[in-house]
């Protein structure tokens, strides 16, 4: 026994386990972890519930899971739904489904095909979204590539390269009835070096090169080098600095 330093954990059906350090953790069914867990690989097919934190080399969630503490991983993939009350830190994050975070999120690459909801800041070098998000704090991304298929909202957006467009063929009709479901990006402030926007509503947009596309409603644009606006956009005023 003492020879084997880390053991694997397997839950099939319904089960509970203490936290601790494991090699592989796989849950097929419904599992509960009653303590902080560290592992190389966590796979959930079904449901995982824990009030504690999880640290894993790789984490895959298929189904519906909730974590009361923090989540840290090299790679996090959610196919289904994951709810985390604390912060999430993952070098690579793929969301096919939904992720709700009570804290903030940080890492290197974030890809959302679905939706992300976060109360705190979201900071990644590369962010690609095909879907929607709601960020209570600031979305800070080196490169932000946003193809909206749902309403997107952030208090502040900052980065180097920001591209926002509505996904082709997305349902525009819904927005006619309820403005909250309209497919558009809403933010107080958007700041970056190189900004191209479509279907965006913002109070202030600041950048070196700014292009305001159709469907935008912008209060003030402040730019350094270049500015362009589509005739189908509404811009309160544009100022060169």
């Amino acid at each position, binding site marked *: 026994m003492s020879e084997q330093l880390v053991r694997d954990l397997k839950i099939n059906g319904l089960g509970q386990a203490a936290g601790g350090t494991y090699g592989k953790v796989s849950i097929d069914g419904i599992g509960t972890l009653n303590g902080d867990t560290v592992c190389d690989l966590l796979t959930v097919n079904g449901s995982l519930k824990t009030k504690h934190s999880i640290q894993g080399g790789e984490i895959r969630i298929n189904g519906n899971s909730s974590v009361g503490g923090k989540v840290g991983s090299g790679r996090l993939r959610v196919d289904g739904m994951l709810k985390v009350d604390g912060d999430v830190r993952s070098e690579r994050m793929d969301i096919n489904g939904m992720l709700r975070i009570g804290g903030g999120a940080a890492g290197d690459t974030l890809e959302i095909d679905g939706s992300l909801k976060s109360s705190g800041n979201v900071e990644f070098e590369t962010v690609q979204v095909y879907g929607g998000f709601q960020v209570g704090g600031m979305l800070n991304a080196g490169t932000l590539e946003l193809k909206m298929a749902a309403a997107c909202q952030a208090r502040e957006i900052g980065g180097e390269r920001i591209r926002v467009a509505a996904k082709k063929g997305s349902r525009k009709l819904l927005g006619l009835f309820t403005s909250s479901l309209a497919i558009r990006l809403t933010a107080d402030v958007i700041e970056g*070096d190189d900004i191209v926007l479509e279907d965006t509503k913002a109070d202030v947009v*600041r950048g070196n090169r700014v292009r305001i596309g159709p469907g935008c409603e912008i209060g*003030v644009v402040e730019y350094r080098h270049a500015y362009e606006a589509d005739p189908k956009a509404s811009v309160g005023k544009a100022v060169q600095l």
Partner: protein
Amino acid sequence: MTEELISKKELLDVTGISYGQLYRWKRKNLIPEQWFIRKSSFTGQETFFPREKILQRIDRILNMKDDLSLDALADMFSPSPGESSMSVGEILERNIVSSVSINLYLETMDSVQQPILGFEKILIIYVLDKLLRSGDISLDEGRLLIRTLEAYFPEKTGRECGIRLTRKMGVAAFLLVPGDGEVYLDSEVKTVARLSMPACTEELKLRMSGSEGS
């Protein structure tokens, strides 16, 4: 005395950096979240920074980013302690602190000789050295400082802590202020010296890594 602030717009004008750079450094933790101070102004929300701290930080980043990776810089600026430890001899040889300070420190310790000092200890000596050199404190007050720091730093105060030396009617008192906020004292109290631990940590790391000769 409230800190002087600089708006984001002015900061970019003065330093010549772009929004992208500013946000990249923020992501890399080169600029702490607490420095982003959001205030509403007539043009909507504006972000301000503590003027002196941010200008110095950006100056350092711009000067050093060619030699060091952003991650190495982040280590340098983080208030967490450095990894390194040094022997007394090495500290003196590299002129990190004066021999007066180090002797004063060794004298207050119970153990006979401790040849290797951890970063935490060196930091305390460095703070002591700074205050002694500036002439703000006497040797006796130096002993008081060592005892105060040893007792409360960083377990009780956290790393983002400020040090004040106050005097009232010739009696000295050290205050450790968690978060380095403002302290309001009665008008007879004179604040003689004021230091910030994160700033000292950063300076010491610079000195120990040898990129800033003394």
